């Protein structure tokens, strides 16, 4: 261990530096020897009496505690309860729309499956003001506001309009849409919202034909991961849907533990953290710089979902039972069903198709069936399917520009006031 150091080649001004370093080095080497001889690496911190028995005892206790926590967690299934505990509306402002986003770093938003957490993060979780006419808006990505800032969404435009009911209440619209097309998804959110939201006065439900096919109803992962909620709705309203759909996620005991639910727990925490960036920026979506516009020219294609050729659709082919369940679930709260605007093309083969979503035969029949169902059931119904100019649609036949959303909002607001003033 002995070393010799040669200072003869050091310059005069380095002598002090050399001395400093030598002193440090001497101390270091002495300490290393001392540690090595005693077998300790943190003198004074580790007791010499530390034995493997002690270490294994600590490890065993930690393992037992870990297992116990996991077992208790699996038994209690507290995720939904935990979801209701939120920094939103307390430390950070509530969100203007339900959390959805695939790139949290850019959108300050993320997708998760915890419905109570989603609603708790929304400003709708705040108590209703005495002078408020509370309107909940459910629906698909067009209503959620794909490619739109919050102030440009349907709800945002209605609120910007400053509408007041005849009895002096200010119309406050809450965007509870979620960017997937499925009436069953809308029904589940409507059910969750009416359970936890303070006294809504009206529910607005914009729909389009693409939300109606049976094969779309149970497609969203949000439904797969809320199997018990969906099953309760299927059973409770006798919906013509498969309650034993294999896509439903049914975690076993291990899957319900902390380890099994680690992703869901992480998302719950992540939702709280991104709330700070949301609070700082007011941004909850990432809008790409360039947007590819919806298709205007089409092939001679008449297919729609399972139908290769035109057929005469009946009410049973589409999920009108789910729509009816929604109206029933709302109870005394009026529901305004809106056939939302869509892009109507004048391009190649537009005599066969309205747009990339719909061949004319399917959409026309859907409109007939929806109008008929509304009339039969006495639903409040507003059909604005071709009320917006084609240039006001962006990347899909149902995604609107801010101007298009403003025009849509005027039509809906008029219907809201009509309902409120009845």
């Amino acid at each position: 261990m002995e070393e010799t150091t040669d200072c003869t080649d050091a310059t005069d001004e380095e002598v002090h530096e050399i001395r400093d370093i030598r002193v440090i080095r001497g101390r270091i080497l002495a300490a290393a020897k001392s540690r090595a001889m005693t077998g300790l690496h943190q003198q004074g911190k580790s007791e010499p009496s530390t034995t493997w028995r002690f270490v294994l005892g600590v490890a065993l206790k930690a393992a037992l505690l870990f297992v116990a926590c996991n077992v208790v967690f699996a038994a209690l299934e507290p995720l939904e309860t935990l979801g209701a505990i939120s920094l939103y509306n307390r430390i950070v402002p509530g969100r203007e729309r339900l959390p959805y986003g695939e790139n949290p770093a850019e959108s300050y938003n993320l997708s998760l499956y915890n419905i109570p957490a989603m609603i708790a993060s929304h400003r709708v979780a705040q108590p209703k003001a005495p002078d408020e006419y509370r309107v909940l808006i459910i629906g698909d990505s067009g209503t959620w506001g794909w490619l739109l800032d919050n102030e440009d969404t349907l709800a945002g435009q209605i609120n910007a309009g400053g509408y007041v009911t005849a009895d002096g209440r200010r119309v406050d619209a809450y965007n509870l849409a979620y960017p997937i097309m499925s009436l069953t998804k809308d029904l589940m959110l409507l059910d969750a919202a009416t359970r936890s939201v303070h006294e809504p006065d009206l529910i607005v439900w914009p729909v389009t034909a693409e939300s109606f096919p049976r094969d779309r109803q149970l497609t969203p992962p949000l439904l797969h991961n809320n199997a018990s909620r969906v099953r309760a709705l299927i059973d409770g309203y006798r919906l013509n849907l498969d309650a034993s759909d294999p896509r439903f996620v049914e975690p076993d005991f291990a899957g319900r533990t902390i380890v099994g639910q680690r992703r869901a727990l992480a998302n719950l925490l992540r939702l709280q953290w991104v709330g700070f960036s949301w609070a700082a920026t007011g941004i909850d979506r990432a809008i790409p710089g360039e947007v590819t516009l919806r298709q205007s020219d089409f092939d001679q294609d008449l297919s729609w979902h399972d139908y290769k050729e035109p057929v005469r659709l009946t009410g049973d082919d589409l999920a009108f039972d789910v729509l009816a369940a929604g109206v029933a679930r709302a109870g005394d709260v009026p529901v305004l069903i809106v056939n939302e605007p869509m892009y109507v093309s004048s391009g190649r083969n537009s005599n066969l198709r309205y747009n990339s979503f719909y061949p004319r035969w399917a959409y026309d029949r859907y409109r007939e069936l929806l109008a008929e169902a509304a009339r039969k059931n006495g639903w409040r119904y507003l059909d604005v399917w071709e009320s917006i100019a084609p240039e006001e649609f962006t990347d899909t036949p149902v995604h609107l520009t801010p101007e298009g959303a403003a025009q849509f909002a005027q039509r809906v607001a008029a219907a809201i006031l009509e309902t409120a003033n009845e």
Partner: protein
Amino acid sequence: MTFDLRAILVLGLAALPYAALLAARWRAWALLAGSVLAIYWLQPPLPIRYADFILPTATLLLTVASWWATRKPGDARQAGTRREDLVTLIVVAALVAGLSLMRFVEAEYRITVSRPPDPLGLVAGLAIAGAALGAILWLAQKRGPERGLAVVGLLVIALFVILKTEPLAAAVGAWWRSLTGQDISLASGADLNWLGFSYVAFRLLHTLRDRQAGILPALSLREYVTYVVFFASYTAGPIDRAERFAGDFRVLPIVKGPDAGRFLDGLTRIAIGLFKKFVIADSLAQGLSLSVASAAQADSALWLWVLLYGYAFRLYFDFGGYTDIAIGIGVLFGIRLPENFDRPYLKTSITAFWQSWHMTLSNWARFYVFTPLSRWMLTRSWKPSPALIVLAAQLATMIVIGLWHGITWSFFAWGAWHGVGLFVHKQWSDRTRRWTRGLSARPGHKRAWTAISWFATLQFVVIGWVWFLMPDVQQAAQTMLRLFGLGW
């Protein structure tokens, strides 16, 4: 593969057979071999063909060249390790050649991140590079040992400057792509993401400089290579000192093998580090941390402050967590790496902050920038005033620390910010020493003053992070103004 959870788990588990099964005399060899393999294993994939194999190999070549330059030929200890040095060279070369044989192994069984180059080509390339480097060193050393040290030092500095300067790195990337026939238009600084080189460079410069000063003890090649590329500290430091590392390394054969106390210490430290890095820092990174984008998007000064504080704590827990993990892994293998952090955000002066934040880097800069520069100025005939010497030395030291993170104007500004801060604090404390001593008689006043000092120091450091975060000075200045309600 970087220093992620899987790497930490593998290294932690490897400590068990190392301590329990390996004969004590083989421990040093095991650390050498493990470290050499780890630099290839940890290197992230690079877009340029074979770059993720060539860069770790270049690290080893440079390390061997640096050792050769820092040898003390007349030293008895140095002479006594000749056989060991030769064996070490053979072992390292065999490991590199062996790794290249992974070219013929399925991807899932390779420890290299991509398919290595052809072994024959590699051996030929190594021989040519080694011969060229050796010839340059020989020629330089013929004109005095100092020249050899200078040549290697300049080479390390040149590489460091290239890697840390985005346009230079991109230009080298483009040149390299032209050699491999890859698309030059895709060249960027990320082409040369040479894992751990910042730390390797400063370790090499430390040994070269200490050798120049005659204070570097004789080190065998095995000690030297393991010191430079020790797997625990390779990716994120700390920047150990060679003589300190060698002290631990040499006593490895007498360290108690399966020592419960050591394992408890090491694992506890790793657990603390994992919590800091993967729970706290990564959570803060999810949204409670300022980013370049959110700094521009923020719509209120209050929330800008909140995010800036989040960023400050994220930096601390991220880097501090990695340091804890590195120290913990080192402890498991019998090497006690130096501490890097000592509750820096609780310090009551900027001087104390820099004695507790990235301590091994600030000590390095103190040894090799501040002290020599201030002494050099003191001995000049045109000796400036003491205050000017302190200002110049502190500015230079902190700017070097800033540029170590990347050669950009914003890192320069961050270094200058702290250099000025240290200077102002020194002037302030020199002038108020009597007054602050007098506070001891008034505990209430002292507590209040301590609280004010802590708050002011923290604000200074936290605001300084804006320079650190932003890609350019203009954005940084704009963000700073917005923190104070200006420029909205």
